[in-house]
């Protein structure tokens, strides 16, 4: 596989080491992890539990700073940034979809989707308008003023997708987005992520070990023991029993 031209690279890590604790309890989560994702693609990170998927995702998202190595996201080096700079970077460029939805239960569906806009300093009215439009796109028209807990799991994850995309981030990060959902709902959610998030300028990284959704990926990076083992374009090439 040839290295893509620099302007198409969205995410690149080189020689990233990440360990937790020290001495007896030291755990190495990433060992010289080299990872690359391109603009316009949906790439999946797969691998057995504990192989470092979430850790790598956190490093790319700028919520974890690795001990060694370089991290570059949309031309911006994240290693060496201060906490404040990382926060500002996430605010501007990142959208998150979490495994456990992480919707704020005491806020309405609409208010949950407004959060990224308000954090960016948008006015209340602008945030309402954009969030309403986004909720219509994920098919939740009419549920805007209800509480998230009144929705089904699939609907809640759709709220989360709306929240992750409402501020049009360059990088969308999804950690196990379907693991709390049944097969059909999971497929619907992935279809929605694909339809709504793919754009030539955006990169989507999805961590999963749910092989039923592999088919939604452009490429799949397989992880093992804290490093990328190989990258494939066809899910059929993966040894799914291994996952």
């Amino acid at each position: 596989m040839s290295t893509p031209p620099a302007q198409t690279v969205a995410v690149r890590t080189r020689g990233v080491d990440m360990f937790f604790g020290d001495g007896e309890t030291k755990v190495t989560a990433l060992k010289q992890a080299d990872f690359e994702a391109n603009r316009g693609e949906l790439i999946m990170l797969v691998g057995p539990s504990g192989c470092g998927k979430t850790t790598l995702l956190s490093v790319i998202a700028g919520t974890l700073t690795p001990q060694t190595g370089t991290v570059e996201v949309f031309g911006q080096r994240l290693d060496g940034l201060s906490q404040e700079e990382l926060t500002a970077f996430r605010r501007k460029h990142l959208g998150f979809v979490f495994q456990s939805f992480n919707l704020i239960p005491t806020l309405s569906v609409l208010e949950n989707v407004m959060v990224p806009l308000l954090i960016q300093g948008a006015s209340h009215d602008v945030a309402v308008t954009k969030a309403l439009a986004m909720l219509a796109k994920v098919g939740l028209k009419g549920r805007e003023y209800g509480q998230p807990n009144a929705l089904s799991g699939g609907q809640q994850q759709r709220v989360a997708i709306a929240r992750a995309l409402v501020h049009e981030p360059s990088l969308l990060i999804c950690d196990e987005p379907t693991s709390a959902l049944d097969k059909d709902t999971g497929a619907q959610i992935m279809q929605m992520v694909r339809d709504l998030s793919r754009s030539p300028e955006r990169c989507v990284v999805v961590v999963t070990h749910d092989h039923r959704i592999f088919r939604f990926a452009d490429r799949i990076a397989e992880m093992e023991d804290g490093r990328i083992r190989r990258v494939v374009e066809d899910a059929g090439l993966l040894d799914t029993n291994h996952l």
Partner: protein
Amino acid sequence: MYRLALNMLFGDRAKLAMLLCGLAFSALLMAQQTSVFFGIMSWTYTPVYNIRAPIWVSDPMVEQANDAKPMRDTDLYRVRSVDGVAWAAPLHTSFLQARMQDGNFKLITMVGIDADTFAGAPAVLSQGLIEDLRLPNTVIVDEWGAQLMGRVTKGADGKEVVIPLKVGDTFEVNDLEARIVGICKVRRAFTGGPFVYTTYDRTKQYTLGARRTLSFMLVEPQPGVDPAKLCARIEADTGLKAWTSDTVIWSWSDRSLARNTFWWFWKNTGIPFSFGTAVALGLFVGIAVSGQTFYSFVLENLKYFAAIKAMGAGMGVIARMLLVQAFTAGLLGFGLGVGMAQAIGRAMIEKGMPPFIMFPQIFWATLALVLGISLVSAIIGIIKVSRVDAATVFRG
């Protein structure tokens, strides 16, 4: 974002109710306990309220209003001749034993007032006429005292009932008859006993011809004369001690009889200590309860604040969100708590027991404490959120 912070707070009615209950309960406890404490302490200067005179003059050794060190009757003339004095009337106070019709003895506070001017007479009589005190062997008893000195009998249902003294009833003080010609309404005193008013001259008989009966002199300044300045002149001219009758105990005026009485009891008795422990306990429980409720509220929301932080909210925004939530809850809880304290206080004032005075200082101090607790809880929350790794949002 602050509107959302408030909606986060108000979104969960059950938790909000818990939080407000905790805060209101502690505000109630703090305001209530201190108000009752100061209510009881204010009983120490009851004479200043009941007697109502612009200036009090006493022996120089007297330190507070319940202290009587009798002066010579001739001192009255010396005070009357001080420049600026409109008039000066004698006042006698003493603790005596009253022998009731059934043979029981009761401790009373006898107050002898000037029969010419009735200076120092009770403001309100619920029965009888003050002028009747000029008749021989007559007294006026206060309502609470009439109850205390009343006759205990068995009612129709076998329960004990007290029949309070009324106009026409008699008792004896030092074998001299005292006939009740009036019942008055006055504030209760710390010493608790009944007030028995009679004329100044008659107190000589009731006290078996004590040589000195002049406990205090009540002085009215001439129009336009400043009481505080007149006090200074009386002291300079006579060597006696002169007091003003303002009841602001939080002042620096060392001429105020009420203030000096209050703080004399504060310093010289165990009362502030014994009641003070109850107050301190109330404060402590209040702080603990509201701090704890707030803290658990913050803990429950920690996960969501971590998510907001991961999404790129700076600590400044999160800190302000937590402060908005904390102060809103604090103010609401304070309002509820102090409102309840006032309502209970009103009900207690109606019953007259225990006394209740919510000084503005108590109000503001409670507000400051509740907001202080809110602030501390918010700061703890802010520290917690700042410590929590944004990366934790990816973990279960």
